[in-house]
């Protein structure tokens, strides 16, 4: 099966274990399995805020902290501070492999290139021979992003057209239709006044 998964750029994730660990993390925050949706959200929000802090911290570490081992190596000279430490670790592992076996192009397999988007053993062996550093372009952009990019926003965003159309429609429409439009607009304008009810509670499993 690896033959197939190795063709995909899965960045090292072959199982759903990371989402399972996220579930576990969440449940520690939730503490109880019978809270309502709002209290669930309260806990999820707390968790998210802590998590973003941690991730920002990890970016900061990758940018500022230099690992001694990579400092001396010509291969990594272009990368440090621009590529995450995790990626450097993967490259280093592959580099060890290439040094031990001295890969030629044919029997490398280029798995690292396909699944991680990082240079694989054959490329590294080549580089070592010629004493060239790894270039930033040879690394998948995923590993080079050490900050969060803001959202792209459409500069020409406007709702005036719809706005005018609604007012026109209210003028023209019969009274019953006006009521309906008002109701719909109210839904949009005051979302927190929702009349939605949560689903009916299921029967208790214990003590029933």
């Amino acid at each position, binding site marked *: *099966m*690896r*033959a*197939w*998964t*190795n063709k995909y*750029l*899965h*960045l*090292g*994730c*072959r*199982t*759903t274990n*990371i*989402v399972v660990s*996220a*579930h576990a993390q*969440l*449940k520690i925050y939730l503490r109880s*399995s*019978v809270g*309502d*949706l*709002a209290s*669930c*959200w*309260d806990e999820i*929000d707390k968790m*998210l805020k802590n998590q*973003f802090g941690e*991730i920002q911290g*990890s*970016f900061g570490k*990758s940018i500022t902290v230099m690992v001694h081992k990579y400092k001396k190596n010509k291969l990594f000279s272009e990368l440090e501070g621009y*590529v*995450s*430490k*995790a990626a450097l670790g993967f490259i280093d592992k592959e580099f060890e492999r290439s040094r031990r076996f001295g890969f030629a192009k044919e029997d490398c397999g280029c*798995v690292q290139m396909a699944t991680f988007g990082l240079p694989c053993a054959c490329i590294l062996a080549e580089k070592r021979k010629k004493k060239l550093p790894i270039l930033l372009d040879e690394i*998948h952009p*995923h590993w080079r*992003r*050490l*900050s*969060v*990019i803001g*959202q*792209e926003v459409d500069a020409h965003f406007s709702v005036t057209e719809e706005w005018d159309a609604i007012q026109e429609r209210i003028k023209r429409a019969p009274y019953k239709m006006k009521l309906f439009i008002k109701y719909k607009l109210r839904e949009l304008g005051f*979302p*927190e006044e*929702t*009349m*939605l*009810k*949560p*689903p*009916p*509670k*299921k029967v208790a499993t214990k003590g029933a």
Partner: protein
Amino acid sequence: MLCGIHNHDLAPKLSGHLFAGRLKAEEKQRVIDMTKSLAKPRNILTNLKGKNKESLTLIKQVYNARTRWRKGQREDKTELQYLITKLEKHQYVYFTRANSEETTLEDLFFAHPDSIDMLNTFPTVLVMDSTYKTNTYRMPLFEIVGVTSTKMTYLVAFAFLSFERENNFIWTLEMLVGLLTSKRNMPKVIITDKDPALMKAVAKVLPKTDHVLCYFHIEKNVKSRCVTDCRVNAKPSKAKVVDKDAKEADDDKHCELVKKIVRAWRDVVNSPTEDSFAIAWLTFKDEVGGLFPCLLNMLRKPFCPLRSIL
């Protein structure tokens, strides 16, 4: 006090008097803060006494302050009104879906604004799964998770679903695609477990994305199938009086067999090239297929694209 005469002497200590034990404004705030960070009432009391040596507060006052705060929190809003107010206040992106009469909530999808930025930065791999037992309504919570460049996990979005049907998953995934700012930013690989409804939904909403199944789940299935379906003696009840020793030996044999099958399966899974996969598959087929065709049939299904080889 009656007729100007005290009915009791002056107490030597004021402890237990409501007025003496009342919480000051600053202390009330501290009780609330500590309650928010899940401190137990007894620990809160210790903290109060540590800050103020003369404090005469009793545990009851701490409990009262907590309850008053909790009640005041939601004012007189219903659960969902409160939830939506909070979502609006914290600038979440959320979508709801109600049943046909628009009275009962069916699905709720929400994502933190920072999560959305993160999703647009690292959209390459997404992993999805649902978890249960998170709320009283028994709605499964569907989580979508991504990976950052530093190999850390971030949570993209959550959805409370009323059912785990294809329709619900399609809706959720469409909302997720809506969060991506541009078309070239589409996720490259999606990893899920072998839930047929979810698999279909992914294929429909994100047809260009590669879809990988969790190999751990498949192996678990193979193992459990071995245990239930592949008894060495298919009908042990034939010989009515089964010798205890014989049974134990039988169990041992069965254990061995399961191990053998799983080992063969791992070879299949870990085969690095298509050729070695074919060889490993043949071995697996020889070992398992002859004895238990049912297991083989089960495994054949998920690998339809590979059928030519099997």
